[in-house]
């Protein structure tokens, strides 16, 4: 396209037209630079995140050894005898994310199959916006729902459930990521060409057999990518978890107990006034770095699965 403009500009003309052309070129250049600057700014965000996290994390590691941080089983950074083992926080994040997956993976995948294979366009036109609303509800609202609705419900079924517990957090986070899983999976299912389905029907397969043995396997890379992306959202989820799961670092797999996730700790530490430059302040960044690396790895992994195992259909 730049050749086209150059041709348009080289039409021979008088000096007035020439200076007009020059000022026009200067203006074009300037605008191009401004636009480039804006695009480059987006990479500055990433660099900023990495630089900020790295700087404070490194100075945190001058106080606490990385081995103790990664493998220590006690997290009591604000106590007198401070312990900085991140495992209890990771366990919290893991239990919530795993519990959320138990709900979101089957529900998300089955509703994706329903929307793509079973429902007509009219029903789909109603159901999809409803799921989009579910995705758009602020997470603090889910926190309220977990604390005032799900937890009392759990306590009537399992009386030993604590007021703050990982299970209710996991349930609402699961509901929250159903739309992520279902809409991405549905996109993958719908990208499978109709000819494959017709071939299977022609061989006498039922609709379920077509869905489960032809369509789902063909779309598997997209489906798995949607699971991983949903999980990464669950790990990064903050407010619902901070409200419902409580603030007790707890190395357990019992979801009926109170547990603190990495995200909930970051919120708690920044709500309390930890003085700038103290080890307590640096823990925000060390835990943030851990969280950032985990979610980044999951996102990159899901992109890799998508590009590596995508079935190309013409």
């Amino acid at each position, binding site marked *: *396209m*730049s050749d086209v*403009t150059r041709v*348009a500009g080289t039409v021979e003309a008088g000096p007035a037209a020439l200076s007009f052309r020059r000022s026009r070129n200067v203006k*074009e250049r300037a605008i*191009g630079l*401004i*636009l*480039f600057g804006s*695009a480059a*700014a*987006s*990479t500055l*965000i*990433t660099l*900023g*995140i990495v630089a*900020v*996290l790295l700087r404070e994390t490194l100075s945190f590691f001058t106080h606490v050894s990385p081995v103790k941080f990664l493998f220590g089983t006690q997290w009591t950074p604000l106590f007198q005898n401070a312990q900085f083992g991140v495992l209890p926080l990771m366990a919290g994040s893991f239990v919530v994310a795993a519990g959320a997956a138990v709900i979101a993976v089957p*529900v998300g*995948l*089955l*509703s994706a*199959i*329903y929307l793509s294979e*079973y*429902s007509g366009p009219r029903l789909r036109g109603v*159901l999809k916006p409803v799921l989009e*609303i579910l995705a*758009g509800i*602020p997470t*603090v*609202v889910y*926190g*309220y729902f977990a604390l*005032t*609705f799900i937890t009392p419900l759990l306590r009537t079924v399992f009386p030993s459930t604590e007021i703050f517990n990982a299970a209710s957090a996991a349930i609402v986070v699961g509901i929250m990521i*159903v*739309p992520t899983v279902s809409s991405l999976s549905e996109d993958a299912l719908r990208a499978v060409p109709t000819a494959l389905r017709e071939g299977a*029907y022609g061989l006498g397969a*039922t*609709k*379920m*057999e077509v869905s489960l043995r032809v369509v789902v396997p063909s779309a598997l890379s997209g489906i798995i990518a949607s699971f991983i*992306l949903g999980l990464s959202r669950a790990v*990064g989820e*903050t*407010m619902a978890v901070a*409200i419902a799961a409580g603030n007790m670092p707890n190395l357990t797999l019992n979801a009926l107990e109170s547990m603190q996730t990495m995200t909930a700790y970051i*919120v708690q530490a*920044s709500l309390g006034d930890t003085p*700038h430059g103290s080890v307590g302040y640096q823990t*925000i960044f060390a835990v*943030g770095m851990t*969280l*950032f690396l985990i*979610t980044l790895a999951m*996102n*990159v992994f899901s*992109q890799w699965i998508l590009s590596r195992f995508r079935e190309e259909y013409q």
Partner: protein
Amino acid sequence: MSEHASPLGGSHSARDRRRRALGTLFAFLCGVATLVGVASLAVLLWDLAVDGFPSLDGRFLTSFASRMPERAGVKAALAGSVWLLGLTALIAFPVSVAAAIYLEEYARRSWATRLIQLNIANLAGVPSIVYGILGLAVFVRTFGLGRSIISGALTLALLILPVIIMASQEAIRAVPSSIREAAYGLGATRWQVVSTQVLPMAMPGILTGTILALSRAIGETAPLIMVGAVGFIAFTPKGLGDPFTVLPLQIYNWISRPQAEFHALAAAGILVLLILLLTMNAAAIILRNRYQTHR
């Protein structure tokens, strides 16, 4: 498909019947799974309406936060949310659209462009609280902006930047290239093509994406806690350097208290927030539909 006879003649075999029954069961299961999402939304809204409606009145909207639940309201939080929304839009919109224009209309296909594109996709997946940490270290501390409304707006702007960029790119990509070629043919410069032809055509799509991104920003809590928005404020912000609170934060503050009266206030606050969200989403949908009919 269902009415095929067995090739050996005669009626359906037992195996066939089982396959069909299994199919019906599976269809039922898929339908139920879809209903789980719909039912969750219904229960959630019903629960909120029951808890929140009694407290939702004119006094609630025009009162400041208070230690006494019967006097507390969302005035400061509502004002804070509106301020933050406006500022975030002012910061994020121009930068995002400029970046999208660059990537779609100016950039050559090079490794640098691919890197920028990959980076934007990855940024969209970074948890919002990490943006809060960035805001805390950069805007609050390094730039010395303090725990102010401008720190909050800058942080949220970074958070929604990748979302608006991607939506804008899609809208710009949807403009047919014949339009561009015609304008170039008439001697227009690249910027003239973009500003007089491409942008006006892509604008409804860009605005829809922006509104949806902003409606995500207005529900954000965690990054604002990081940059120091506080839950108890008894005045509306007057300037960029003022401390502030927002609706989700006020709601969080009320949820964290043990008394049931405050939980009812939280539910009422959530209803206000959801109404605000609904209005923004409706605006986005109207824009989208108008765009589709006018094409």
